[in-house]
Structure formats: structure tokens, C-alpha cells
């Protein structure tokens, strides 16, 4: 339980940093060049860490199913959809909707145990929890924020 939470928090913190870094790259080279760079580096780093820990077994592809090769394309769907959504709605609304959808589908996938996941039985408590979290996202994203003009400009 604690390990799982720590891992999720690590992932979330790195996603936050990555979004900030990527958006700086995005300004100059556009979203597909940025995506290519980001996924290329991610693959390279994964391979190097894997090779350090697992050595030559990184080259063994005997347990691959055909569809495993295609799961990487989902990431392309993510980028395409988010870029289009942000262009049309602005990032505040687009990200609020995307995060809500992320949680909704998470609950759905847990409840049905699709893709061989361990089923997490659906309870009203879980639905209420998710609704409160979604409420939190909306308050966070739509709440007014003032820019602080006194110090360093970007």
C-alpha cells in the first residue's frame, strides 16, 4: 500500500516537471518534434536502466504478444487528443476534463478487472471518493489565481 502510493507520487511529481520542461521545448519546435524527442529519450533511458538491472535479457522478446507492440500507439492518441483539446478549450478546461476522464476510466477498469487486472470490487465509497476528487480538480483548476507582478518576469 505505502510502496504503491509512493510510486504513484513519484510518477505524478515527474509528470509535473516533465510537463513544464516539455512546454518550454514545445514553444520553439512544436508538439510533434517535442513528442518525438520526449518518447525517444524515454525509451533510451528505459533501455539503459533495464540493461543495468537485467542485462542481456532485455533483448529476449520470446514472451511478446502481437498487441504488446501496439500499446505504444496509445501514447500518440494521448498527445493528439490533448493538443487538439487545449487548442479548442484552453489548458484549464481541457486538463480538467482529461483528469476527470482519467479517474472515471480508472474506476471502470478496476471494477471490471479488464486486461487481466486484479479486480477491485466496486463500492459506493469508491464512487463518492472519485466524485470528491473530481470536485477538487474542478475547484483547483477553475479557482481564480492572480499573477504576482512584483518580481522577475518570465
Amino acid at each position, binding site marked *: 500500500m505505502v510502496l504503491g502510493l509512493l510510486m504513484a507520487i513519484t510518477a505524478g511529481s515527474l509528470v509535473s516537471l516533465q510537463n513544464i520542461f516539455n512546454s518550454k521545448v514545445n514553444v520553439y519546435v512544436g508538439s510533434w518534434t517535442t513528442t518525438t524527442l520526449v518518447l*525517444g529519450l524515454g525509451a533510451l533511458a528505459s533501455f539503459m536502466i533495464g540493461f543495468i538491472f537485467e542485462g542481456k535479457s532485455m533483448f529476449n522478446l520470446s514472451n511478446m504478444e502481437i498487441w504488446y507492440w501496439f500499446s505504444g500507439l496509445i501514447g500518440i492518441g494521448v498527445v493528439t487528443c490533448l493538443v487538439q483539446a487545449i487548442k479548442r478549450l484552453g489548458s484549464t478546461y481541457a486538463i480538467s476534463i482529461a483528469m476527470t476522464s482519467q479517474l472515471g476510466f480508472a474506476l471502470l477498469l478496476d471494477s471490471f478487472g479488464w486486461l487481466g487486472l486484479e479486480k477491485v470490487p466496486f463500492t459506493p465509497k469508491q464512487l463518492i471518493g472519485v466524485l470528491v476528487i473530481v470536485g477538487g480538480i474542478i475547484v483547483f483548476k477553475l479557482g481564480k489565481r492572480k499573477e504576482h507582478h512584483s518580481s522577475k518576469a518570465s
Partner: protein
Amino acid sequence: MKGSLFAFLGGAFITFQGVANSRISQDIGTWKTATITQSIGFLMAFLILLLIRNRNWRQFKQVKPLYLTGGTFGAIVVFSNIVAIHHIGVTLTIAALLIAQLSLTFIIDSKGWFGGVEQKMELPQFIGIGMMVIGVLIMKF
């Protein structure tokens, strides 16, 4: 309307990607999963890049080198996401991930780090994060 649909699908894809990765990792291991999914994504993005017109490689020089390294975090993100889903399920993983993501972005914004415009901490953001934590507690206890 179309924008909302894109956002909705984008969010769904993020969750499906995480779940697919954690399924695949059961057969081939976590690091291989992270390597393969990101390699295929890289190839596809590169293909799209070759097909579209507006490529501006030269502009890379304008970006601070530090910001170009963000992609490497992807290795740890995919790894942690898979381990978390195996341990605590998809919903709790995504909830904790989003809380961490929003909180850190909030802290970075309010300090004006990484050259951003300093944005004051306001009550709605505190309440929002508080509600998200309460939501997790409701789910778990």
C-alpha cells in the same frame, strides 16, 4: 464540444496506456515494457513529424539544454506507474498521481521556478488539493 470530446478521449487513453503497460509487464518485465512502448511511440511520432510541414529543428538551439532532458523522466514515470497499479489498483494510482502532479505544479508556479511567472497561492487551489486528499481517504478507509 469537439474540444471536450478530445479531452475526454485523451484522459481515457492515459488510463488505458497505464493499464496496458501493467498488463504487458506481467509477461515481459517492467523495463522492457517501458522501452518497447516508448520506442513504438517514438517511431510513430517521428513518422508523423516527417509527414507534417512545420518542422523547425534549428530552433532546438534556443531551448535551455536542461529542458531538453525532460523525456528521460518517462522511464521512471512508466516504471512507477506500473508498480503502483500492481500494488494499489488503477483508481488509487491515478488519484495519488494527480494529487502529486497538481501539488508540485502549484508549488513551482507559486515560487516562479523554471522561469515561470510567479502565481500567488490562492484559497481555491488549497481547497482543491484538500478535497482530492479527502477523496482518497474516503476511498481507502
